[in-house]
C-alpha cells in the first residue's frame, strides 16, 4: 500500500506482512522492521523498534491517519488523495490553498501567461502572509477566488493549463 506524509509528495510503500504475539513485521519499501506494540490505558501505546521505545498515539480520519511518536506529529494520506493532477508541461494543474486562510491578493487573471516562480496569490493565515507561485510556465485557465475570500485547506484557487506554443498575451502588470 502506498501513502504519503502530508505536505510531502514522496511516496511511502509500507504494509504489515506478519505478526507473532505483540510483534508485527512491517515492510517499508524494500526494508523490513520488527515492531512491538503494547497498548496503554491512555488510548495510545508503546512501540518498541530495535530496542528504542516510543510512546505513540493514532487516529483515523476520513482521508488521513494521524500519528504521534513522542513529541513528533505525523499525518499520512493515501497516495491517491495526495496525487496532484499533472498535465503535459505543467508541474501542477491547480494551485491549492496550503492552509485555511484569507486570500489577500490575486495577482493574475484568466488568460494570463505566468512563468515559473511568478507570484499568483497571497494568502494570510495566523497573521502570516504566504505567496503562492507558479511551479512552471503555464496559462491561467481560471481564477476561482477573489480577494478577501476565506478558503479552506486544499481549496482550488487557480486552475492552470499548459502554456500555448506561441504566447497569447503577456500578464499585464497590475498597479497596486
Amino acid at each position, binding site marked *: 500500500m502506498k501513502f504519503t506524509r502530508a505536505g510531502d509528495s514522496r511516496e511511502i510503500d509500507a504494509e504489515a506482512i506478519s505478526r507473532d504475539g505483540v510483534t508485527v513485521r512491517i515492510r517499508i519499501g524494500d526494508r523490513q522492521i520488527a515492531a512491538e*506494540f503494547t497498548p496503554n490505558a491512555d488510548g495510545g501505546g508503546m512501540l518498541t523498534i530495535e530496542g*528504542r521505545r516510543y510512546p505513540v498515539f493514532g487516529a483515523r480520519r*476520513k482521508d488521513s*491517519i494521524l500519528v504521534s511518536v513522542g513529541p513528533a506529529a*505525523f499525518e499520512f494520506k493515501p497516495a491517491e488523495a495526495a496525487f496532484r493532477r499533472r498535465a503535459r508541461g505543467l508541474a501542477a494543474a491547480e494551485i491549492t490553498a496550503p*492552509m485555511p486562510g484569507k486570500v489577500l491578493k490575486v495577482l493574475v487573471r484568466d488568460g494570463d501567461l505566468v512563468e515559473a516562480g511568478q507570484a499568483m496569490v497571497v494568502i494570510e493565515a495566523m497573521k*502570516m502572509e504566504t505567496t503562492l507561485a507558479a511551479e512552471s510556465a503555464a496559462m491561467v485557465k481560471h481564477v476561482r477566488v477573489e480577494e478577501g475570500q476565506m478558503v479552506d485547506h486544499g481549496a482550488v484557487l487557480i486552475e492552470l493549463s499548459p502554456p500555448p506554443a506561441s504566447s497569447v498575451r503577456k500578464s499585464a502588470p497590475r498597479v497596486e
Partner: protein
Amino acid sequence: MERRLTKLLVANRGEIALRIIRSARLFGLKTVAVYSAADANSAHAGAADEAIAIGPAEAAKSYLDIAAIIAAAKRSGADAIHPGYGFLSERPEFARAAADAQIVFVGPRPEVMAALGDKVAARRIAVAAGVPVVPGIDAAEISATREYAAIVGYPLVVKAAAGGGGRGMRVVAEASQLERALEAAAREAAAAFGDGRIFVEKYLARPRHVEIQILGDNHGAVAALGERECSIQRRHQKIIEESPAPGLSAEMRAKMIDAALKLARAAHYTSAGTVEFLVEGGNFYFLEVNARLQVEHPVTEMRFGCDLVCEQLRIASGGKVAEFAAPRGAAIECRINAEDPEHDFRPATGTVLHLSVPGGPGVRFDSHLARGAEVTPWYDGLLGKLVCYGADREEARGRLVNALGEFALLGVTNNAAYLRDIVASEHFRDAELSTNFIDLFFSGWEISKPEIDAAIAAAVITADGAMGDTTSGGAVSSMPLPAGIERRSPWDGLKNFELWGARR
C-alpha cells in the same frame, strides 16, 4: 492613588488569558473572559467567572474591537482590564477608552504607550536618554528610504512602527527587494496592528537578542528584573528564551539594566514592560520597548520567584513596585506552535485528539490546550509555552529535553520535536547563540529516520483499528480495555492487512 479593584476583564484569548485569570483569582479579583465565535468553547472562556461573547471569529471584529470590549466590561461591571499581549495590548486608544469608561487599564498610561509603543518615537526617547540605538530611518517615503539605504548599506531590516514580536518585519538583502518588502511589511502591519507605518534599520550580521524586564509604579519608582536571552528566533519570531543570558558579563548586564532603567524613567513608565536590545560583541543597541507583558515573561518569574501579573495588578491598584530578591538558577522556555517544521513552518489547524502534558520538578506548561480543543486559522498559532527551571542552565536544559520528550499532541501538527532537537543539540548546549542560530544550525531540519519508521509502523497499526478508533473525522476513542477483560488481539485484523484497502 490607592484603588481597590474587584473585577478584571481579560481582553485576550489562549494561554495568556488563562494565565492572567489564574493570577487575578489569586489576587482576589472576579474575572471576566471575552470570546469570539471561534472561541465559544475555549479554555479561557470556561475558566473565568463569567464569559461574554464579543463578536465573530475575525479578530478585527472581536478581540480588536475596542467598543465591543469596553461594552462587555461595562456590562459585567469590571473595574479593570488586562490586555495580555498582542491584540489591543499596545494600542493607546484602547487604554484611553478604558480610562474614559472609568476602568483601570492594567498597563502603562496611554501617552506612555503611544510614545514607547511607536518604535520611531521610542528611538527618539532612547537617544535623548543616552541609550545607544541601531542606525535607522522612518520609511514613510520610498525615495528617502532608498537614499538612506544606499548610505547605510544592505542588508536592512524593515519593521512596523506599531509592531512587536517580529510581525511585519522583513530583511531586505539588496536594493531590488526594497520596494516589495516595504509594501508587504506595511500591509502586514496594517492587518496585524491597524497601523501600516514602517521604518528601516541597519541589519546587524550576527547579533544576540537580550532584553530587560522592567516594572514601574505610579509613585515614580522603576525596577529591573534581570535579562532574558531571546536569540533563538525563526523569521524574527522568538521560539526559545532563557535567563540568564549565557556568557553575559556582570558588567555588561549592569550597563544594560542601567540603560533600561534610564529609558523607563525618561518615559515615566508604569506596569510591566520590556526593553529589548541587540548585542553584538561588547556593544548593545536599543531595539524597542514592548509596553506590555511579554510572551516569555515566565522565564523571569521562575528565576525571581515572582508573579508578574500579580505585580501588574498591585501596581494598577496603586501599590508600589516590590523589592525583589536576587534571581536564582536558570530558566528556559520554548514555544510550542501549530506549524509544520518540516514543510516551511506552514500554519497548522485541527482538533486536539490527545494531549500528554509533561511534569516533574521545575516544569511549567502554560497552555489553553485540552482534548477536544480546536486550533483554528483565525489567530496566532501559539499552543503553549513549556518552561523549565534548574539550579543552573544544564539542569534547566536537561529538564526541558525530558519534558519535550514527554510531550505528545495528536491532531495538530506542531514543532515540539523540532524544539526538542534544538534544545538537545550541542549548539544549544554550548550556547552558540545569535539571531542566526536557526539558519546556521537548523535550517532544513527533518525528523529522524527511526522516528519516521516508528510513525509508519504506528500508522499501519492505527489503520488496522488497533489504536485510535475514530468516527469519521471525529475524536479518538480509547482502544485498550482494563486488564483481565477479554479482547481480541490488536493484531487479529492484520491478516491480509491492506492500508485503506489497496487498489492493485
